[in-house]
């Protein structure tokens, strides 16, 4: 194990796969000499040369087409978008071609391509450099959508994405690039489509991914004396690990989703629907996500729009405070603050 940043873990996965498989190529704008806008590919050009580390023009749809075509004809490209927002320029190649070719040709071809992109706000980058657009891709059959939350997951999931025979959209929250953690030295994979319980609990399941896993963990820590929160790191939003979600909420009876994308038609909505279809809930579902606005550049507005630890705590309290109150939550300070507490506990005693 080595302690490294999220950024270094991504690079390490790419280096391992470049060494292991000569069909792997890295493509993108300024990924060579410049080392990438977020320095993820720094040093790769010097080590692997311009045939494997390919600088591309600012022409996202054309370049995505080159990557899809190269994937169909035998290479395994990893294409970096400078910002996720710019994937909008390449939607035709990603969604109308890459996602469907294998299906349209009845499995006669495969499209082993990875579309990597930084996403998310919080830096005052404004409405066209801050978006979390994962729901667009989650809604497109044929694409896998992977979003790691830790350096180890970044390595294991990117390795799995590169080895996957289909197109994978691989999303990296900008706030995580400098996050440090222990990462296995050897190449390893985390199975795409598997979520993970990162903190066990009994009162409410919090489903999160990427940066929002850390909001959920911090909220769980602050609330631990009063509410026992089970944090699920989705890791992959397509395919979604529906079984793990259903099992977890089956146990806790409550669901809170935390996402960086806009709430309407977002990841949390799909998680909520999945759970509501199979679990009888003890209280209404709550969702915390980005307000339905273009990400503001202005700092106070951006803060107001994005999910935060405080918003997760407020939402968790709201659903756990519902009339179906759990019996075991009876801390003294709460009784003092809330005169209706005894009555609620009495009502919910079964």
């Amino acid at each position: 194990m080595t302690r490294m940043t999220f950024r270094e873990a991504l690079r390490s996965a790419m280096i391992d796969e470049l060494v292991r498989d000569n069909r792997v190529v890295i493509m993108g704008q300024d990924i060579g000499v410049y080392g990438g806008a977020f320095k993820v590919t720094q040093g790769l050009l010097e080590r692997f040369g311009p045939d494997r580390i390919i600088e591309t023009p600012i022409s996202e749809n054309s370049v995505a087409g080159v990557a899809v075509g190269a994937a169909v004809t035998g290479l395994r490209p990893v294409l970096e978008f400078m910002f996720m927002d710019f994937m909008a320029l390449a939607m035709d190649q990603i969604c109308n071609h890459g996602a469907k070719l294998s299906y349209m040709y009845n499995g006669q071809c495969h499209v082993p391509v990875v579309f990597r992109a930084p996403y998310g706000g919080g830096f005052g980058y404004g409405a066209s450099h801050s978006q979390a657009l994962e729901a667009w891709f989650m809604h497109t059959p044929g694409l896998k959508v992977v979003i790691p939350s830790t350096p180890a997951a970044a390595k294991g999931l990117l390795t799995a994405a590169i080895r996957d025979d289909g197109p994978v959209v691989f999303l990296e929250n900008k706030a995580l690039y400098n996050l440090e953690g222990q990462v296995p030295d050897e190449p390893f994979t985390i199975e795409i489509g598997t979520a993970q319980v990162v903190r066990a609990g009994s009162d409410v399941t919090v489903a999160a991914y990427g940066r929002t896993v850390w909001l959920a963990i911090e909220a769980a820590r602050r609330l631990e004396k009063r509410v026992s929160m089970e944090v699920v790191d989705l890791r992959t939003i397509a395919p979604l690990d529906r079984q793990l979600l259903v099992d977890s909420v089956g146990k806790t009876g409550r669901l809170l989703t935390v996402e960086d994308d806009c709430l309407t038609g977002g990841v949390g909505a799909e998680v909520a629907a999945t759970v509501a279809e199979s679990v009888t809930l003890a209280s209404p579902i709550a969702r915390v996500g980005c307000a339905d606005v273009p990400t503001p550049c202005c700092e106070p507005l951006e803060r107001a729009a994005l999910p935060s630890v405080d918003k997760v705590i407020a939402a968790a309290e709201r659903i756990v405070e519902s009339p179906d109150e759990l019996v075991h939550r009876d801390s003294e300070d709460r009784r003092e603050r809330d005169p209706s507490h005894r009555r609620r506990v009495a009502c919910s005693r079964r």
Partner: protein
Amino acid sequence: LGHSKSDKCVYRTREEELAWLARDPIKRCRRRLLQDGDVTETEIDELQRRVQAEIDDAAERALACPPVLEETLHDYVAASTGA
């Protein structure tokens, strides 16, 4: 110069940069106006002064603005449909 403050401009030489600087379109426009247009040096200087004053004024007013209210988060996301 460059794409951002952190851009070391490794993709072009200093000579190339200087060659383009010598063709600064704003300076060329001034020369062209003096040469071919019906304007005097004084008029251009006055225009420049007015533009600078407008910019300074805008910056000053922006800094003096009260903090943005959270209630305005959703303003102009969609066109108003009227009352």
